[in-house]
């Protein structure tokens, strides 16, 4: 117990830097994944058969393989496939975004489909095009359904970013490894990281349920 306190006193900044890295990584990932996921969801819902097949393949491959496997793939292959220099962190972020987009796409698709069919019919009868219907009528209403699920995705991503520590990306698990290797104190270093993860996800979950209540009251 005492070691944990001493360890915190000496190396708290490492953990805090790592936490900021984790939160930032999760935020960027979910943000861009939402944009990508929306496009995929719309592709999946469209009447064009080919798009449906492609997106189904995309989603099934990404959900059917372990995330760590995907991280390794992107880390190994991406730099070889692009003509410019891609940092390790960039490869990992891209991999996380792609993976998250497959889950987010399903969330958004469900959110869109939950919007009353009557809305689409009314919009069409008013002469709105497909695209405008989606953009101005359906999506804004779908957002209410999607927001809580996206919030959950963020909390999940905060935990999933821990896998990036394998590639030395700046986040909380990497902080644990750094402190542990500098001090040879494995369990105390791990406990500190664990406590931080737990406190942060608990706070985020609480915040999310408050948000959900507010949305329902609207």
């Amino acid at each position: 117990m005492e070691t944990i306190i001493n360890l915190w006193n000496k190396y708290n900044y490492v953990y805090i830097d790592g936490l900021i890295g984790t939160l930032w990584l999760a935020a960027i990932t979910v943000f861009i994944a939402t944009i990508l996921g929306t496009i995929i969801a719309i592709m999946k819902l469209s009447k064009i058969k080919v798009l449906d097949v492609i997106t189904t393949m995309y989603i099934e491959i990404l959900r059917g393989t372990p995330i760590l496997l995907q991280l390794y793939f992107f880390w190994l292959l991406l730099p070889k496939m692009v003509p410019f220099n891609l940092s390790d962190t960039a490869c990992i972020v891209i991999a996380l975004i792609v993976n998250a987009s497959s889950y987010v796409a399903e969330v958004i698709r469900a959110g869109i489909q939950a919007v009353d069919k009557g809305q689409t019919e009314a919009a069409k009868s008013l002469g709105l095009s497909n695209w405008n219907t989606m953009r101005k009528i359906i999506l804004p209403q779908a957002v209410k359904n999607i927001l809580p699920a996206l919030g959950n995705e963020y909390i999940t991503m905060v935990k999933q970013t821990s896998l990036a520590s394998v590639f030395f990306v700046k986040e909380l698990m990497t902080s644990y490894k750094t402190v542990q290797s500098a001090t040879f104190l494995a369990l105390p270093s791990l406990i500190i990281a664990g406590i931080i993860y737990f406190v942060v996800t608990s706070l985020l979950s609480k915040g999310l349920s408050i948000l959900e209540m507010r949305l329902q009251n609207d």
Partner: protein
Amino acid sequence: MSGQKKITKLITILLLTAIVLGVISGCTSSATKAESTNRLDAIKERGYLEVVMEPYFAPYEFIDPSKEGQEQYVGSDVEFAKYIADKFGVELRIVPLEFGAVLSSITDGKYDLAISALAYTPARAEAMNMSKGYYFSKDNPGYGLLIRKEDASEIKGPEDIKDKIIVAQSGSLQEMFVNEQVPEYKEFKRVSATTDGFLMVQENKADVCSVSIAMAQLYIDANPNAGLMIVENFEFEFDESVDGTRVGIPLGEDELTEEINKIVDEVVSTGLYEKWYMEYTEYAKSLGL
């Protein structure tokens, strides 16, 4: 899903896989072709040297948490890397990777040098060029076995491991010792990080860990209540003719290897590497509690 739809789906999967594999092999072969010119020249031309290491092995290479970016990597191997970069007149870029990836990235030719307390093994020598030894542990403790104190009377050497679980870092020299010098064991587990092995013994997930005695002792000193000890009077047999940590270099890069060997001769004969080793042993101690 109807039979026809299933077949369509199957064909699409196979087609996609074929395309993906085709793209990948096309890209990777063109990438390796570009790098087949002399690497030493390539390094001097691009102006930087990329050195891979696993920075979790004090005092060779480790991380100073109070520093950022490239500055955080410290250790005798890091000093050595800086020295080499200076000799070549280029910038140094340290690439941290887990140990398995350190080895594979050199056999792949992805990075220039691996300076990560690499010991000589015949298998490694086939997959990459290895320099002459730059640090010799003849006078220092070698490799042995880590066990829980309560098992001291039961485990005195590799013959006693018959019904025990042994663990070692994947891809390491310690793993090779288990394969060659432990006749029988109940189970052989592997881990990617050195300290994970210590933890496994500590937490009863394994009974013995094949370790570098110096490293293990540092852990035991920092964790007096962990109940661990090193088996006394036992060291793995070590072929002294292949003693010495080496620099790993992509296979076939003979000009680069020659230059590295010249630099190795320098740091060994002037005692420079020994000095760095002592310096960073002290530094590492200061980072603990």
